[in-house]
């Protein structure tokens, strides 16, 4: 069943490093409140956080949306950013276009997208140069009631 039990969406502002991570923190709190399996929470939060950081680092603005169904969690992060010219390259561990400033803050080591894919049961990334990027992931709840 794909019936939507609970949905949320958050706006993420680009280059606002002070508030970066807020939407993934809210998603985490919500999942905890829902008593979702901690291992599932961990994966969902990693996905939300990495995708959110990509928005903060590269785009002007984006949205994080979260949907819970009986079977899974869907997280979609969409931005109006520069887009990713070569997705295959971007998926390689260590590939990064981050600036020194981003790296100084502890981000941009080229692990974001690979990390997202690793933690998702299904992951679809679409990107158009000059228009933006959308990352849509699903995480199964599995054993969870």
């Amino acid at each position, binding site marked *: 069943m794909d019936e939507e*039990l609970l949905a949320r969406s958050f706006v993420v502002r680009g280059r606002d490093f002070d508030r970066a*991570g807020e939407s993934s923190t809210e998603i985490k709190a*919500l999942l905890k409140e829902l*008593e979702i399996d901690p291992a599932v929470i961990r994966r969902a*939060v990693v996905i939300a*956080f990495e995708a959110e950081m990509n928005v903060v680092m590269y785009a002007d603005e984006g949205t994080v949306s979260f949907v*819970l169904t009986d079977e899974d969690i869907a997280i979609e992060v969409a931005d109006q950013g520069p887009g990713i010219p070569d997705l295959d390259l971007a998926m390689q561990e260590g590939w990064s276009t981050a600036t020194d400033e981003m790296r100084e803050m*502890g981000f941009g080591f080229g692990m974001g997208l690979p990390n997202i894919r690793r933690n998702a049961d299904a992951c679809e990334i679409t990107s158009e140069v000059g228009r933006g990027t959308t990352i849509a992931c699903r995480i199964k*709840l599995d054993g969870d*009631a």
Partner: protein
Amino acid sequence: MPDYAHGFVISDDRCVACLACMRVCPTCAIRVRRGKAVVLSELCIDCGSCLAACPHGAIVATTGSLEDIASRFAFKVAVPSPVLFGQFPGEIHADHVVQGLLAAGFDAVWDYGIELELGARATVDYLDAWDGPRPVINMMCPVILRLIQVSYPRMTEQLVQLQPPREIAGRTIKKWHADQLSVSPDQVAAIYVTACQARTISIIQPAEGGRSYLDGSVGIPQVYNAVLSAARAAARAEPAAERTGPELVRSAAHLRWATPRVFARRMQGRGYLSVTGLAKVIEVFDDIERGRLKGIDFLEGYACWAGCANGNLTVDNVYVSQGKLQALMARLPETDPLTEAEVERRRPSEDFSLEQPFAPRAAVHAGDLRERVRRVKEAERLAAELPGVDCGLCGAPACAVLARDVAGGAATIEECVFVSDERLRELRRLHGSDAADD
């Protein structure tokens, strides 16, 4: 749901429902209902914040006394927290403290530095072998351990999944002294002399379940006077007093366990953090959960801001005792040959494994997913109706907490004074002022 033991009781006679304890509780485990503070047992991590916050002395630590324990055992062995050695005036050395403990009623004092060193090495080995998420988090502070079980369930796997050294000491003491005395191990008591209440709880009810090897604990304040007077006498008799065995405290490494940076030296070349104070630990754990703390391999965290030296069962001023510990450490070599030899001898066969791993505390009756979603949505709807000022007069620490309690059926929305005038009248009656107003 299992019943969780805690190290304090709230006296209904003394509690005036002032809300002080409820406001400081880091896990929102306290409610004030019908004019009295009550603890939600499954959320309490025994941090002792409420004890310190209560202005009416209504929250009292429960500790066993040495006499209680003495009546059950033929032979009592003290395992002194390293903190104890920094609690006395400058002229009193560790050996005098040992003599004080014997005078206070113990039959022997254990050379706990050996197990501490064994534990430190087992921890470093554990870290070396660990290939899961980092940082690995030390389990020495029972409050931090319980905080993770309650508030950061998914981080339990990052805990050092080993017995703490005090447990290894308990196990060894019973066997060794029983052999020496040719009695059954049941007749030998291993008693931890503790600087905090939380250690007591960890003995009564270990965080992983199962049973402690230690037979009980006494707080430093309970033995302090007896130890002090005998230790003073011993110090005065010096240098006439004859040494009967090796010194108990022989290395700085032993006393470093009374500081919050036990592993600093051992972690050179790795990402290492020492975090103290419950509020700061919570901040750092939030960062870990968000994946924001990168490059840290090992973290030791303590609920008390100066580490165990300001545990709630200490006597001396914490700054003074920190100074004493530093002075003692400065006089000692980092390691000593006796400890080294004993550690090398025991290390190959010493088993630090837990009978069962540290796991998250069971969730409070979950219900199926749809029921939980209903509850969360209901709580959100209710929270929107509440004023959001977190006044606490309803008896819950925040509006969001009341909303959650109501959604879960543990409270009613009429407990909010903004919602119900009757609640306000009830509070007026309860707290005496304007009692006959309406």
